[in-house]
């Protein structure tokens, strides 16, 4: 007990001394870092000056990110060791990609059929097979609860550019927002900063579907109370905004509420794409024709 008291006294004395002699510089260091981080934050939020720094940091930290994925990767690989090794693996890989391609093409066909019936062959819808498509594997999901991103294994070396729409087997999944040499970052539809111009297949009304931070629900903006939207209506991309090509399935209306304090309705959408389950996606090169 006595030892503890003495040591506490000594420690207190030394801390008093440190407060007298070194605390000012110690606090100054904290203030310098605070100031530095504030400047960096402003620079990153307001301008794109720090993009090269972010790029360099991503490159530097990539080994750690790889290290994080390593246990899961090793586990998957060890399970596959019992199968017929490389040939079987490459076959599965090829078949998976083909299957994904075919399912997307099937979606296009059904969507085009609906369009043809409803618009009486008057409108020409974008045939998505015009665009060059290529598959990618999802490496990682963002662990941050405020943003919904995924990391894919295609980057600048595969000619991926910012703005490429990303699809999975069931519908639109998001768009590429950052590209690096070996990988890219995709913002999912459920991200609070995501917005997709859509139209209702049944009524042809246009609206904007935005993310709200929930993985299995999206919100629909700018639908007036006079709108005839119903539960079960299917929404597809409208092609406005030049980002997503026209005619890709986005989601289905699951609830419609008229709000007393607003001129617009509150519409919840269930996305068609499996935002959290997919491990293979398709990138659409909207600049190049296939």
């Amino acid at each position, binding site marked *: 007990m006595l030892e*503890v008291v003495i*040591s*506490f006294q000594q*420690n*207190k004395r*030394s*801390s008093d001394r*440190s407060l007298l002699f070194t605390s000012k510089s*110690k*606090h100054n*260091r*904290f203030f*310098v*870092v*605070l100031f*530095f*981080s*504030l*400047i*960096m*934050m402003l*620079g*990153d*939020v307001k301008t794109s000056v*720090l993009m090269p*720094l*972010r790029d360099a*940091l*991503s490159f530097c*930290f990539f080994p*750690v*990110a790889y*290290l*994080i994925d390593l246990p899961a990767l090793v586990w998957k690989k060890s399970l596959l060791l019992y199968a017929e090794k490389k040939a079987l693996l490459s076959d599965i890989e090829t078949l998976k990609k083909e299957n994904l391609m075919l399912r997307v093409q099937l979606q296009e066909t059904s969507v085009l059929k609906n369009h043809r019936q409803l618009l009486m062959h008057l409108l020409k819808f974008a045939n998505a097979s015009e665009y060059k498509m290529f598959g990618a594997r999802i490496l*990682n*999901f*963002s*662990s*941050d*609860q*405020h*943003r919904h*991103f995924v990391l894919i294994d295609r980057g600048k070396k595969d000619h991926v550019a910012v703005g490429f729409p990303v699809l999975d087997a069931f519908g639109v999944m998001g768009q590429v927002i*950052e590209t690096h040499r070996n990988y890219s*970052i995709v913002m999912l539809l459920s991200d*609070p*900063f995501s917005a997709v111009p859509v139209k209702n297949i049944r009524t042809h009304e246009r609206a904007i579907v935005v993310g*709200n*931070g929930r993985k299995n629900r999206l919100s629909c903006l700018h639908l007036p109370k006079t709108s005839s939207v119903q539960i079960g209506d299917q929404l597809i991309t409208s092609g406005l905004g030049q980002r997503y090509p026209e005619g890709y399935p986005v989601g289905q209306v699951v609830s419609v509420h008229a709000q007393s304090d607003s001129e617009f309705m509150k519409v919840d959408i269930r996305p068609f794409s499996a935002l959290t389950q997919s491990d293979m996606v398709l990138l659409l090169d909207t600049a190049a024709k296939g």
Partner: protein
Amino acid sequence: MRRRGVLTLSLFRFFMVYVLILILMIYPFSTPFIYPFWSILLLVYIQCIEPKLFHVIHLIFIGLFLDTMTHMPLGVHVFSLTACAWAISFWSPFFRFFGLIQQLCCILFFCLIYQLVFLFLIKSCGYSIVWLQSFIPVIITVCCWPMVYIFFERFLYFKRT
């Protein structure tokens, strides 16, 4: 010579723990809000128990790492960690002599500072926040401290003079 060897081994252990903490901080859990603030626990340990190891460069490194890996604006985590470390620096000389409950209260206070500063900054940057979910990690961090402390004491043993 022997003392030098022990010091090298200890520094190697510290490096290993550092990498482990970095990995744990961004490990993709299925429910991202149920995890402790490993960075704060490490910070409390090195500032209060092993102050010789502490340097502000750690804050910048860990902060930038978190900002990059979680795709947040650069500087958000650096700012929150520095604010928290600054608060810890006032308590660090006395922390070792506190009882367990007092230590847990201190850690709760540090975590609250960190989380409030962090939430304020990301709210200012335009992010949406779920308040209740954001404070679950604070409670979990406090609960984890005794285990983490024992682990650090066993694994990161430095000869104190």
